Every structure is written in C-alpha cells, then in structure tokens.
C-alpha cells in the first residue's frame, strides 16, 4: 500500500499590518498626485508622468501586497520574463507604427 503524502509548505513570512497600511497610504497619495498633475494641462508630460506614477504604484503593489519582495528568486525571474515579452511586443509593434 503506498499512501504517499508529501507536504511542502512555504516558510510563512509575516508582514505587519502597519507595513500594509503604509503602502496603502503611499498608493492613495500617488493617486492624488497623478490626478492633480492631470488637471494642470501639461500636454504630453501628463502622459509620461501618469505612466511613471502608475509604474511606481505597480511596484508597490507587487513588492508588498503581492509579497514578491519576500518570495523566491524564481518568481522574480518569472515576472521579469513576462514583462520583457510584453515590452518587446510593444516596442516591435511601434517599429512599424511610428514609421508609417
């Protein structure tokens, strides 16, 4: 009889409530910033600023809320690969679009 149980639990890393709330405050603040900038009518700078702020918010969410800061390297490499592919697609598509 082969009743075979394998159990691999991950080392549970606890993040404090406080850290999460701090991250949330940062996210809300950044939202306020991006809305404010948009109201100033800076033209194309608005877009760059908005995307930059969105990226910072993303990094905060991924690193802390999604716990990636404390994860194994494999997950980080995976995320990097996914982003690389997405960026490649965007860039190569524009190698056509921006030159028509």
């Amino acid at each position: 009889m082969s009743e075979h149980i394998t159990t691999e639990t991950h080392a549970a890393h606890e993040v404090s409530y406080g850290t999460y709330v701090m991250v949330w405050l940062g996210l809300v603040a950044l939202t306020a910033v991006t809305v404010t900038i948009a109201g100033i009518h800076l033209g194309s700078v608005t877009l760059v600023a908005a995307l930059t702020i969105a990226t910072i918010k993303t990094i905060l969410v991924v690193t802390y809320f999604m716990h990636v800061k404390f994860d194994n390297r494999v997950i980080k490499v995976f995320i990097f690969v996914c982003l690389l592919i997405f960026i490649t697609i965007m860039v190569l598509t524009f190698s056509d679009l921006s030159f028509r």
Partner: protein
Amino acid sequence: MVMEHAHPHVHRDDEGSKMGIWLFLFTEVLLFGGLFVLYAGYRFAYSDGFVAAAAEMNTFIGAVNTIILLTSSLSVALSIAALQKGQKRLCMNLLWFTIISGLAFLVNKYFEWSHEIGNGIYPKGPALENMSSGEVIYFGLYYTMTGLHGLHVIIGMIFIGFVLNFIKRDIITSTNFQKLENAGLYWHLVDLIWIFLFPLFYLVH
C-alpha cells in the same frame, strides 16, 4: 475479480501552487497587454481624437473607483496577515470588505456607463456618428477594456467567495492558506490593471 485500490498519493506544494497562479496572472497580463498595445497604437495615431473623447469621461468616478480598488487590495493583504496571526474572524471580515468593495466598484461603473450610454455614447450609438475616427476608437477601447476589467472584478469576487467558504470550513487555516494567497494575488492583478486603465482613460488632457 474486483480490485479496490488505495487512494493515489496526496501532494501539497505551496510553492508550486503559487507558481501556478503567477503563471496564470501572466496570461491575464498578456491578455490585457494586447489591448494596451492597441490603445498605444491608436493614441499615437489619433492623439487629438483621444483628447477630445476623454473630455466626456467622469474623472471623479474614476478616481473614486481607483481608491476603492486600492483599499480592497489593502483589505485582502491584511486578511492574509490576520489569518497568519490566527485571527480567523478578522480575516473573514476583511475578505467580506474586499467583496463589497468590488461590488461598489461595479455599481459605480453601472452608473457611469448608464450615463454615457444614455447620452448615446457607445459603439454604433448616435453620439458616435458625428465623431472622428479617434473618438470612435477611444470609446470602443474604453468599453472593451473597462468591460473586460469589470468581468475580472466579478471573477475575483467569486474567487474570494470560494476562499471565504474554505476558511469557514477550515479547509484554509493559519498554516495552510496558499489558496487565500492565490485569490489575493488575482485580486491584486485586477487592481493593477485598473491602476493603468485609470490614467489612460480618465486623465487624458
């Protein structure tokens, strides 16, 4: 001769489960990614049309919805911490809060869309007949992208609903909570997509 066999082996691998959900999240990123590529292409081609169309958007509702989703991400992250600390009741309450936030987001969306549709602003709608190509495509992308996102909010809510049930039945516990983490990761992705949708549709000036 009838042969009864022992159960096949039981296998728990939290790290593998986490990898699996991350890979699934990547497929969602590329799914929306395709739409973002289209958005980028068309904004590049029709920048004036996009600016004109975006004037119709309700930045206030968009901002409120952003805050709602950010807060719901906080609550789901806190729920995991709570469960790790053995605070099951608090964990479940936080998850309920997350679901209700999702609902609030969708209700806002409903009012927002009703208003726009009421004004004839929708694909093949009366308001679009006189609009430039850029504006038409802006709204096409708007409904497609926010609609698809809304669908994912619903999926996320269902996912969390299942997890709530598992916690109630002690299938998910303070030492066995990868399923909760996975639901949380999915929810955060839904939040992340909105983090980009918001400026691209509501902050175009």
